[in-house]
């Protein structure tokens, strides 16, 4: 008989896999309450480090061509496909879903990456436009990523809710710091291993595991975060109040559904800024 080699579940910050600087972990149980793994419990410092990593990565990611971003997102789908067994096993263990249900969730997660991958070079064609102003000017409105997004993945979804929180943010060139579901974090960490091998620049996606209620206030009040997605939070009123300090764009609980294989263009554009450029026409 051979003893299997277990995985240490760590954080994902700046493209690296550090333990929590606090040294803390918490036990994660399967759907029957049996111990599955010790998972890193992120601290305030980890959250701040993640924001720094996200900020450092954001302009480069936004500056990549839309074609390039589309290919990276598509590659995430490709890399996921090859890990089906592992994700399905983790989803089943954590949630008690049947094999069929777990496969369905996994399929939807892959399809969501493909759906989003196709948007990178079409957002402006659909949501931007030339403006026929009443004067001799060239006038165009385009959309660009708002910057660094802090997000809290839905608590009741092991993989799909997380994917549908990350993809709409990064498709346009945002960088994200996302806190996974507290009780269902294993697929989130496995997803980071996929992201790390998909040519996604380090720091574009940063994943923290731990207590949402502990980390959320530090991200909601962080002055270098531009937008916040409150879908997976419990104390969302207080967090929206804290987010007002630097006028973060807020995605409220319930604003966009997370459990389909398709997202919403409005979800994507809600994390973008419309920029209008004027230039005179003349000789």
């Amino acid at each position: 008989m051979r003893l299997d080699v277990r995985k240490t579940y760590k954080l994902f910050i700046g493209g690296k896999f550090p333990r929590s600087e606090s040294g803390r972990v918490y036990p994660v149980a399967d759907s029957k309450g049996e111990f599955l793994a010790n998972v890193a419990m992120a601290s305030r410092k980890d959250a701040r480090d993640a924001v720094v990593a996200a900020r450092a990565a954001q302009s480069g990611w936004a500056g990549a061509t839309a074609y390039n971003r589309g290919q990276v997102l598509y590659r995430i789908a490709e890399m996921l496909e090859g890990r089906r067994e592992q994700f399905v096993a983790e989803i089943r263990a954590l949630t008690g879903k049947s094999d069929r249900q777990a496969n369905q969730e996994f399929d939807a997660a892959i399809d969501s990456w493909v759906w989003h991958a196709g948007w990178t070079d079409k957002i402006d064609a659909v949501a931007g436009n030339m403006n026929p102003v009443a004067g001799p000017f060239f006038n165009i409105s385009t959309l660009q990523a708002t910057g660094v997004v802090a997000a809290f993945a839905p608590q009741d979804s092991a993989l799909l809710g997380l994917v549908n929180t990350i993809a709409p943010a990064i498709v346009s060139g945002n960088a994200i710091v996302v806190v996974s579901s507290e009780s269902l974090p294993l697929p989130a960490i496995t997803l980071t291993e996929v992201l790390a091998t998909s040519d996604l620049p380090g720091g574009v996606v940063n994943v923290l595991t731990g207590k949402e209620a502990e980390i959320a206030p530090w991200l909601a009040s962080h002055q270098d975060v531009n937008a916040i997605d409150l879908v997976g939070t419990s104390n969302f009123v207080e967090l929206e109040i804290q987010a007002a300090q630097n006028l973060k764009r807020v995605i409220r609980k319930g604003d966009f559904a997370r459990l389909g294989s398709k997202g919403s263009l409005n979800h994507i554009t809600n994390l973008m800024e419309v920029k209008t450029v004027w230039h005179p026409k003349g000789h």
Partner: protein
Amino acid sequence: MFEYAPAPESQALVNFKDSYGHFIDGKFQKPGKTYQTINPANEKVLADITYGTEKDVDLAVKAARHAYEKVWSKLPGAERGKYLYRIARIIQERARELAVAETLNNGKPIKETRDVDIPLVAAWFFYYAGWADKLDYAGLGPNPQALGVAAQVIPWNFPLMMLAWKIAPALAAGNTVVLKPAETTPLTALLFAEICQQAELPDGVVNIVTGFGDTGAALVGHKDVNKVAFTGSTEVGRIIARQVAGTNKKVTLELGGKAANIVFDDAPLDQAVEGIINGIFFNQGHVCCAGSRLLVQESIQDELLKKLQRRMESLRLGDPMDKNTDIGAINSKAQLKKIEALVKQGEKEGAERWSPACVIPKNGFYFAPTLMLGVSPANTVAREEIFGPVLSVMTFRTPQEAVTKANNTEFGLSAGIWTEKGSRILKLADQLNAGVVWANTFNQFDPTSPFGGFKESGYGREGGKQGLAAYLKGGY
């Protein structure tokens, strides 16, 4: 310098009532507890205005809700559009009267209200009138729905224009509104109420409640409003963002700015000087997107400043009703004191203050066009919005330094670029964190063109289909 004979516009074009009540459910109410609104150019009282209470706000929201449910939401878009076209036409007909009224109550030059403010007001209604029966084409899928009752709070710098930016898209999308004009500039909003009556707009579709900040707070906080639209300071914007936390109210905030106007060494300098002047002295600098930070490439600083100072010496400050006036009155004593305090603070922190020789009228509130020279990036006048005719001058050497300095602010509303090099414009336009970028021009506005900021300049856009989406479900 030429002498100019006075060329005053006639005040007889407008007749204000002695006192005004709120406009609720299609009717003017009896005035309640009132305060005086004045002409800031000479401090003379123009009318008594009602100080709106929570009860007044509640009455207005109820009227708007009733009109939404019983009338406006049932009207076909084409019919809503026809009301808006009617309003646009009446504004054009009464344009000169509205321009005079705006200048009297706001203090801005008649040439601006006549040539910029009021024409844009009419254009805004005409533009959004056409959207009312074309909502399916707004990019939000078939048959997008209105939100309901919109609470709208507007500032004093472009009183009627801000009203148009708020009311035209709201009504086109099928909402009804309660609007609170700024306490110092309520008169054109009340004239607009008369225009709604002349257009036979159904009762309760537009309601105007006058008053101060607490009146606005009562409106924003009212449980039965579905949309909040605010233009004003970032400070108040933060308060509103906190106030709506945890509700389903959709919010648009147009807040402060500290725009960089970047001039490169290859810019057409005479054109750039006109753009700089327009960028900071248009409307006495009471403009959230004003080009209040001049970033000039070091090699041309001396030449540009010489031209700029020469041009500033020819600016005419004085009676806003005079057709030759370039710089009118500061809107209020409070604003004048704020400008004076910020400029003093800037001097204390090492900036050198310069103004052309100019005669300041005895009565009324005026501030000479001012340059702050040798401003360090940490200086208060380089960071805080002054909202007055004060330009802070800084230099840069490379395009990258220009971008870094321009983006070194918590605001992100607008920016200007002056260069003959097209590729440089396009690169900078990408890199500047600003919702509106003017290249080789400044302070241009148009109803077809979305306007609004990044970062702490607020969120949401006004103008264009984006401005329409702000009043529809599923829009951004």
